[in-house]
């Protein structure tokens, strides 16, 4: 696994990289205020393959997710999109026998580098799961502060500030501000998921990964989370896996379509474009079949 400072040049020949790219790589710039025109690569996925034991799940995926934008991964179930997502914050490797190859760079630093500690990667790349999973032994406030406690950051008042900020940012504050000491499990499913989002952004990651975050929720709760995503994209890089095409069309700036190929039984990235392009003028026949509902 190589870690290169300037990944861009090595990838220009990759014909799968269809997303427009301008100036990309500015370490040290604040995430605030970066306009959509000056796209900065936040997460660069470079020739990544992943396995569960001997079984290959993802083959040779390369794409770049831009800061302050929402990137969606779509595709039929079993196409490896969740596995790819879990490679980004090194959650893939907690499965016994699971491994990944290739390189993934966060702001230019290889998260699979030799000295890199996976827990540190996860402190900077947060994740929201398919089913809401608040910690059952903790109150709402404790749930939000859990990451801060893991990292041992912040005094008591600082933690309180941050809990309030995270709950406000995840549009949950007004609903729970009087019940902060109630158990997190007491909330409704949609509220629990927003609590999990609050818990994730409380530690101020750069990237938030979302693994089908609305699949366990009703339409109203789904809408709230979708609204939230566009808000969150102003501060963070969002990468979302969804099986819901409309959701990708609604929230994502860029969309990648993945598909399991018969040749190796693993997921490949078929097409990666700005969302409007992918849905209106897909370049690949298989993408077109998928978005017009011919399979999947």
């Amino acid at each position, binding site marked *: 696994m190589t870690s290169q*400072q300037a990944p861009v040049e090595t990838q220009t020949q990759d014909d799968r990289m269809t997303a427009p790219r301008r100036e990309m790589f500015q*370490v040290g710039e604040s995430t605030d205020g970066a306009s959509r025109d000056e796209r900065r690569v936040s997460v660069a996925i470079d020739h990544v393959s992943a396995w569960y034991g001997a079984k290959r799940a993802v083959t040779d995926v390369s794409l770049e997710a831009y800061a302050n934008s929402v990137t969606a991964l779509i595709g039929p179930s079993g196409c490896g999109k969740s596995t790819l997502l879990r490679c980004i914050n090194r959650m893939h490797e907690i499965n016994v026998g699971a491994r990944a190859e290739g390189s993934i760079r966060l*702001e230019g*630093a290889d*998260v699979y580098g030799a000295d890199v500690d996976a827990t*540190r990667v996860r402190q900077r790349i947060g994740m929201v799961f398919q089913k809401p999973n608040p910690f059952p032994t903790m109150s709402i406030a404790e749930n939000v502060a859990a990451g801060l406690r893991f*990292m041992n950051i912040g005094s008591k008042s600082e933690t309180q500030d*941050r809990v309030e900020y995270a709950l406000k940012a995840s549009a949950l504050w007004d609903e729970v501000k009087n019940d902060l000491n109630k158990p997190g499990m007491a909330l409704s499913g949609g509220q629990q998921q927003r609590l999990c989002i609050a818990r994730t952004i409380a530690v*101020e990651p750069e990237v938030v990964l979302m693994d089908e975050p609305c699949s366990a929720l009703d339409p109203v709760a789904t809408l709230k989370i979708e609204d939230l995503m566009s808000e969150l994209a102003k501060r963070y890089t969002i990468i979302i896996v969804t099986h819901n095409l409309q959701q990708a069309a609604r929230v994502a700036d860029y969309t990648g379509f993945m598909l399991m190929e018969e040749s190796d039984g693993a997921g490949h990235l078929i097409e990666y474009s700005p969302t409007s392009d992918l849905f209106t003028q897909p370049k690949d026949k298989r993408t077109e079949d998928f978005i017009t509902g011919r399979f999947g």
Partner: protein
Amino acid sequence: MSDAARKDASLAVETGRTSIPRVSLTGGRSVGNMVFAGLVGVAAVVVILLIIGLFWELGDRSLPAIRANGWGFLWNTTWDPPKRIFGAGTFIVGTLITSVVALVAASAVGVLVALFLVEIAPAWVARPLSVIVELLAAIPSVVYGLWGVYVLGGFIRDFLGPWIAQTLGFIPIFNGDPRITGIFSACIVLSIMILPTIMAVSRDVIAAVPGSQREGVLALGATRWEMITMSVLPYARSGVLGAAILGLARAVGETLAITLVIGNRVGIPHTIFDPAYTMASVIANQFTEVENEAHRAALVEVALLLLVITFVINVIARLLVWRVTNGQNVTVQE
């Protein structure tokens, strides 16, 4: 790489009123994981050392007796501490009789109850019944002993014993003189005591038989009892056997209740009402009042023998039970 990491570390994101320093991806790995793994590893090693220690300690302390008594210890029936003659034969026989009788009685009832719980009883019967059996397991050995001496013993001496001696007296082993303590009392108390073990393990094993096994036979038109004998019991066979053997291990090692009810007499019993000794009860009864060092060592040798026997029985039983319930016990997650 290191250059980028350093630049990285200097970054801080302003949020709200406070800021969180952005961590570098590289750097000192947390020692917490190593300390944690070390600590729980130590706990695991302690458990292993305990088992090794048990054998080593008892083996070491009984070494003089093993040398003095030789193999004859296993079958000689003379136990005469003042003359330093030690043979554990009678204790082995006492243990064998009480354990085997209890095993047969408790297995028959225990497996039937387990089948009743899993295959027949509705939940509102099965649940309280399970609780009752578990409470039976929770009653301390010494309380069984107390009950065995002062309630069961009197009943045997005055009613059950004479009746058995009269009806079955033509068979020599029943033609005895019923008293409060003796082999018969010990067998009944032991049966009750190991019943919960056998029942609980059989129940788990039988519940682990896949539903498809039952459906296959039921679909052929079998009655429920035929289903039990044709599919459930054959499938759960080794596990039920394991359950019975676990009960046997408990019966062999059972101490205080037996010490109270078996009568504690050295000698081969001739009828079911005779007093006797088991390996465990002779240790409990004599160890605090040993006549000499040789006596003490001989008692430790009995303990070592008991330990080895129960260890072997346990190993066999666990292997049998694991074979059936393996899937549930071992593969859960990660």
